[in-house]
């Protein structure tokens, strides 16, 4: 019985979160003595890039090269993944949580009559039943969840396992399937996406600014530090509400939930709803002029000081160690 991993790609490269999903699949196959780990990519992407997915732990990559799948039409992707899953007789589907992955997983749970667990935080325990640890209450707790169906779908969180990079190149095989036109009923008319930016939900380092930054004209300082760190930029909810920053940068309970290795919060008070979106970060640094700001209680490191003084100095100090 094999494990199928649905992988997403953007701008010609497989997403890092999808490579993590492949490594998760590999670790899962070792733990449960499942068979091969097979990755599946949809739409236009090069064979060389797909072969590289082997490094993360896939032995084979299946590729449905149909151009109609270049856009992430939810129903069409779900249909394609479901067909391939059945064709290869897979027993588990693994994918990385994302705006497309989540939507595809939900439809597949019905199509495949599978037990679906989302926000998976670790490998399952299989000694006694099949138990998966998932993150709940927006990162404030975990739930041990048993899956009683034969078919399983695991939508994994960032950093659920370490990314494997030492596997051999995978073989790439083309797969031909036909997708019924009804699956294209919802049409994507255009997309509006920042080019070449590090994407917030996938970033290893995030620099976020809050209302303490005083206005959009001061974001250059946040961006400079982010650039030095190779980080994505984020913000608090009021900052995106007032329109200082675009909505997709809003971090927290009602925005993007991030799980970077390093989260730097500048001029953000640390309201519980903001913390809910960042509590999966490995290390949190807080810069705030108020020593009583609640964020310091959730931080690993902190500087009490004026962001306008600290940020330029910090950017220089980061530059100096490179």
């Amino acid at each position: 019985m094999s494990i199928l991993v649905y992988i997403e790609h953007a701008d010609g490269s497989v997403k890092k979160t999808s490579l993590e999903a492949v490594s998760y699949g590999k670790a899962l196959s070792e733990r449960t003595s499942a068979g091969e780990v097979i990755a599946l990519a949809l739409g236009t992407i090069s064979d060389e890039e797909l072969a590289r997915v082997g490094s993360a732990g896939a032995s084979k990559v299946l590729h449905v090269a149909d151009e109609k799948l270049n856009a992430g039409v939810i129903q069409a992707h779900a249909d394609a993944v479901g067909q391939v899953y059945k064709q290869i007789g897979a027993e588990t589907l693994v994918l990385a949580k994302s705006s497309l992955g989540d939507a595809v997983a939900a439809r597949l749970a019905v199509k495949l009559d599978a037990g679906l667990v989302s926000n998976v935080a670790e490998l399952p325990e299989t000694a006694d039943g099949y138990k998966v640890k998932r993150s709940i209450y927006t990162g404030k707790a975990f739930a041990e969840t048993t899956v009683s169906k034969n078919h399983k779908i695991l939508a994994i969180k960032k950093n659920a396992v370490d990314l494997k990079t030492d596997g051999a190149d995978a073989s790439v095989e083309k797969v031909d399937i036909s997708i019924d036109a009804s699956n294209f009923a919802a049409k994507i008319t255009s997309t509006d996406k920042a080019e070449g930016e590090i994407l917030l939900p996938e970033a290893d380092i995030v620099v976020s600014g809050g209302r303490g930054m005083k206005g959009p004209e001061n974001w250059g300082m946040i961006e400079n530090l982010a650039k030095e760190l190779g980080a994505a930029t984020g913000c608090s909810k009021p900052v995106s509400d007032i329109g200082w920053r675009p909505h997709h940068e809003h971090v927290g309970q009602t925005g993007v939930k991030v799980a970077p290795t390093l989260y730097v919060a500048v001029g953000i008070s640390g309201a519980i709803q903001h913390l809910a979106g960042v509590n999966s970060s490995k290390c949190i640094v807080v810069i705030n002029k108020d020593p009583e700001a609640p964020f310091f209680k959730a931080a690993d490191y902190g500087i009490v000081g004026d962001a306008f003084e600290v940020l330029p100095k910090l950017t220089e100090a980061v530059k100096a160690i490179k």
Partner: protein
Amino acid sequence: MKILVCITHVPDTTSKIQFTDNNTKFDKNGVQFIIGPYDDYALARAVELKESLGASLTVLNVGEAETEPTLRKALAIGADDAIRINAFPTDALFVAKQIASIAKENNYDLILMGRESIDFNGGMVHGMVGELLGMPSISPVMKLDIEGDTVKMAREIEGGKEFLEAKLPLIAGCQEPIAEWKIPNMRGIMSARTKPLNVVDPVDSEIATDVTTFQLPPAKGSVTLVDKDNVEELVKLLKNEAKVL
């Protein structure tokens, strides 16, 4: 035009999350329950559509009797009637099957809900309902307009947004800034008391997943403060101690 909005009954965002009974139950002690914030956006947009298109608006919750005040609040915000499917919402598929069953009977044109609940955060119910009913389901939707039988939407994707068009009927998982949260006014609260709230038995559904125990994350250690005139020290700590640079 018939609109259905599905709402969750969840702990307020400021709640302290704790468990009882050997970590097998959520501790409701001192917790205030609210309409899920994402569902609240869906409801707010639905009320706007009801007013501009002259639609009917039903709210639905899968939950036990304790969720009725939350449904009444949705009625006060502007829904015409409410349905409570009398069952504990075991998992996403169970809830989706209940919603799909009601939707099949009533032929709604538009089914809205939040992109995810804030208790289990699965974000799966709308997609499952879509598959069960053979309809498109779009999420997370941050803009939704109806022109004739065409729905124009913007969906948030990593790093930006995607614009979509689809025909009714469809399902959408909503988030801000689709509409501004609405606060019930006095008239709304008064009229909500007499609006119909129908309690319906659940349809059978096999259990696919079940929570056995809960856990809290390990407590955070205390913060290491670095002097603002010595930022080089912070960089050193991040590199050598935390090993994140």
